[in-house]
């Protein structure tokens, strides 16, 4: 039962983040790139003021998989780094925390682009 609840929360919270994104697409003139930027900044702010942490506890992947989770990760990384290294941590914390995602995206981006050929759109 516990495991069912856990997945349900991941589904509901993650789904809601996406539904908010869809509302922005349908009812505003925001382009997808702007929506992504907004989600990441929102994640940094929500993570910074401590609202996001409980959501991660509750929903797990539902909160970490959406791009707000990426923002939360940046904020969390910076906080730990500042505690450890002071002002230098403000600069290094974000990239350190995001390194897995960024590294993977850049490297897989390169490999996939090298291997595959663009398909026709009809």
């Amino acid at each position, binding site marked *: 039962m516990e495991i069912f609840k856990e997945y349900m929360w991941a589904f509901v919270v993650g789904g809601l983040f996406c539904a908010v994104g869809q509302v922005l*697409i349908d009812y505003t*003139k925001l382009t*997808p790139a702007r929506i992504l930027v907004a989600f990441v900044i929102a994640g940094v702010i929500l993570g910074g003021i401590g609202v996001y942490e409980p959501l991660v506890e509750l929903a797990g992947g539902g909160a970490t998989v959406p791009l707000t989770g990426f923002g939360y990760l940046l904020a969390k990384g910076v906080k730990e780094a500042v505690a450890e290294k002071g002002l230098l941590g403000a600069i290094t914390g974000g990239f350190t925390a995001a390194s897995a995602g960024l590294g993977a995206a850049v490297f897989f981006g390169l490999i996939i682009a090298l291997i595959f050929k*663009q*398909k*026709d*759109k*009809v």
Partner: protein
Amino acid sequence: MSQKIGRSTLLLNSYPSVKAFAAIVGKKEGEGPLARHFDVIFDDTTLGEETWEKAESRMQREAVIKALEKAKSASTEIDFIFAGDLLNQCISSHYGLRDLNIPFYGLYGACSTMAEGLSLASIFVDNGLAKHAMAVTSSHFCSAERQFRLPLEYGGQRPPTSQWTATAAGAAMVAESAGPPYVKATCAGTITDLGIKDINNMGAAMAPAAAHTIKTYLYDSHTAPQDYDLIITGDLGMIGSDLLIDLLKREGIDISKVHNDCGKLLYDLEAQDVHAGGSGAGCSASVLCSYLLTRIQEGALQNVLFVATGALMSTTSFQQGETIPGIAHLVHLTYQKGN
């Protein structure tokens, strides 16, 4: 000799003929309702080339060669060719036609290029400046999409107002008066901008230009919509067409009974998932150079106003938040000389 009447109309008194025409299209267009009218349908829209740009150039070249073949003419018989396309610096025309050795005038009229080129070719022939002149244009979904919008593999949703850029090219060869279809008159477009900014609603951005040109021509030529079998606009799509009819109604002109749009004809709007219809320079060009000119040649259509519309923004002006200016050039095509 051409004669100017009114603000922007030229009467071509010698009635130049559209001697030959050809339309080359891609797979999706070849699955549409006009399929049987096209000269060549490429199921592989790369045309076996490495890039989309090369594919588009090839299409434009093939359209010219096919039209020459149908006219039983050699490229050396063409005095001038008027060509343009949507890509930056009109590379589809420049690269597609570079080996043909035909004196070349490059045009940029966005999706209105076919009407602009056909106007100029006809004017040259009418005034004895050319025996044979040609107009050609093209567009390719993939090359246009990557220049104007987002990468092809990017997972975005197209809003319902968006139009589908046709993968198509059309070429028309104008010669001294010989037989239908004849070019009776042309009307130059005026840049018209009613403040639309939405790049996904091009029909709405261009409808005012079409309304302006149609109104001007009817006024200059002292005619009314009922004098025509068909007033066909190029690529306003569903939304732009509705807006055009409304705009002209406000001016006391009712074209609703004779109006149609190339963007609505090229695809099966329901089944082919093109949202508001087709667009792109190749859309109106391929519809004109297949179905339309054939119908006029047969006499099934006697009096047609071909009004191709273009949206004159660039990616730079769009990103800088500018509105989208539109233009519409008109060509009056007839089955008979005189009235």
